[in-house]
């Protein structure tokens, strides 16, 4: 399959480190678009700050809006509300979406606005040098937790479920076929969709936590297979212990699957919250 047409020719090579999962995630997003035959000229890719924000910007040959740290969902909300005919996709990292941008994340989910948010979750701040993130598992060593992280992490799927998202799924860059399937569903979802895409960061996370991640980037990717558990039912999300570890460990398993439960939500939340533009005018 030729994905070149979705990439700006002048921007190669990509800036990602060896062993980074973001290149696989980039391809998964483009394959999903290709398999759905979407018109990329009617799509807008919005990202924040960090390594994950560089997945669409500047690589994707589409309209790309590279915003401030934590703010892509707010910008995407403005784009989508003013021109609902555009398909608006947010691709950003866990620190961007869940820490500094956490308020925008939960309120966009509450509005159930038709945005696809893809979180490239590597459990660390990569670009700034490997500081602890709200998704870092307890005990993990980072640049700002040299004795090990002491705070419990967010489970982002639980978070957006509680806030009102109507399509939620988690997969990893190891399970790339499944990841593409979920991204396709998110792109076609009429409401707020969220993909927790686990993508390892060897440079900042793996090398500091080699006991659980292994000593090479390849180990870290293979660990995703060992530590992942597939959900048998969406409700399993609520009984599964939170441990979103990009590298995984014995006790921090990753629960994969789709967790949406549309019956719990109003079908089009934004109609009640927002005056939508009359398309005839």
């Amino acid at each position, binding site marked *: 399959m030729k994905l070149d047409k979705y990439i700006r020719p002048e921007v190669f090579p990509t800036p990602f480190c060896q062993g980074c999962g973001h290149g696989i995630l980039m391809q998964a997003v483009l394959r999903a678009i290709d398999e759905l035959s979407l018109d990329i000229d009617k799509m807008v890719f919005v990202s924040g700050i960090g390594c994950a924000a560089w997945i669409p910007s500047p690589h994707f040959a589409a309209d790309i809006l590279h915003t401030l740290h934590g703010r892509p969902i707010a910008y995407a909300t403005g*784009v989508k509300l003013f021109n609902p005919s*555009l398909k608006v996709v947010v691709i950003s990292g866990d620190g961007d979406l869940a820490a500094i941008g956490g308020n925008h994340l939960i309120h966009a989910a509450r509005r159930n606005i038709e945005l696809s948010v893809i979180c490239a979750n590597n459990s660390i701040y990569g670009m700034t040098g490997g500081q602890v993130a709200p998704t870092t598992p307890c005990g993990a060593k980072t640049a700002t937790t040299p004795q090990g992280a002491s705070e419990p992490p967010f489970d982002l799927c639980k978070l957006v479920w509680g806030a009102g998202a109507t399509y939620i799924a988690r997969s990893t860059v190891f399970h790339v076929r499944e990841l593409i399937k979920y991204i396709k569903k998110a792109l076609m979802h009429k409401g707020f969709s969220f993909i927790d895409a686990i993508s390892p960061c060897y440079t900042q996370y793996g090398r500091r936590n080699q006991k659980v991640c292994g000593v090479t980037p390849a180990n870290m990717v293979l660990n995703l297979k060992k530590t992942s558990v597939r959900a048998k039912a969406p409700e399993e999300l609520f009984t599964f212990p939170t441990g979103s570890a990009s590298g995984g460990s014995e006790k921090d398993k990753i629960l994969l699957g789709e967790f949406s439960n549309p019956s719990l939500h109003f079908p089009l939340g934004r109609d009640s919250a927002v005056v939508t533009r*009359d398309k005839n005018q």
Partner: protein
Amino acid sequence: MTKHFLQGNEACALGAIKAGCRFYAGYPITPSSEIMEQMARELPKVGGVFVQMEDEIGSMGAVIGATWAGAKAMTATSGPGLTLMLENIGYAIMTETPCVIVDIQRAGPSTGQATKPASGDVMQVRWGASGDYEIIALSPWSVAEMYEMTIQAFNLAETYRVPVFLLADEAVGHLRESAELKEDIDVIPRSGKSDLPPFGNPKDNNVTPMPMFGQGRKLSVTGSTHDEWGYRKTQSPEAQARSVDRFCNKIRQNADKLAPSPFPLPYGERIGEGGTDYEKYYVEDTETLVIAYGFTARSALKAVQMARANGHKVGLIRLKTLWPFPEGIFNELPKTVRKVLVPEMNQGQIVREVQRFTALPVKQYNKTNGTVITASEIAAKLNEIR
């Protein structure tokens, strides 16, 4: 021309609709909330979109996003909310996103007195975002000007592709008076499709037309330093220098014609000579010159008239554009001027700009107790310094 009895904040919203604003994102904050409430009522009537966001950060982000989707967009707030917006306003400067931010100033710092007037944000709008840039800020003194200057702010935003501030104070925002809302006003439309680079013409560095998403142009927009096509150039001294120079020069070089005002006449009885940046009252032979803006200028005009009635040679220059500071006023002053008085509802912000551009003795009168400066207070100060 229709005469209305309405509030300054309501007039601002009507001006925005008239200017073609079709997107509003905001967060409630006293004393600006009436603008948001009015926009929630008016926008659906004209096919526009209103959204109340989760905070001021989100509001400004949504305004920028909607602008790139093709909207003329606005938000309104007050000092503390503006503080939250400033990071995104810096982004609007960097990405040359035209939009309008209304700041109805209240007494600060911090929560301060939410329902009381002040002019404490003059420097916040000038320097609040990080880095180097020039900014445009207009200062209305009446309900009619809340309407007119909102339109003017949109026109300036479109012309120079910058965020423009309407910097009013609570006293003007909540003022109720009769006002003529002019129908026959030039509105500068969003520029059409263009093949020019989105971020400045490399030939002359001039502003290029504002593009929009969804037209197949494959736009790249980033708050990082970028070239004319929007590609990140975070290691290039040339790209960084070009960006900052462009953001400053497009305003500095046009400062004298900055207000292509659709309003040749100031509102109401025309006493002074109308300029686009400022108005002059009784300055031909004046010895003491008052320089004022916003609600304070209303009191200053009254004080000047009281002094004139007593035979004192006192005049007023009312600033309508605060940023870029209309330094040209000092080139046109009559030789009779001996001293200058700058009354402000802050501890002295514009007075320092005045001092930068004149060698005349400059006195100041400052009031920061959450009440407006009255005409008698200015008159007393004029007596004291005469």
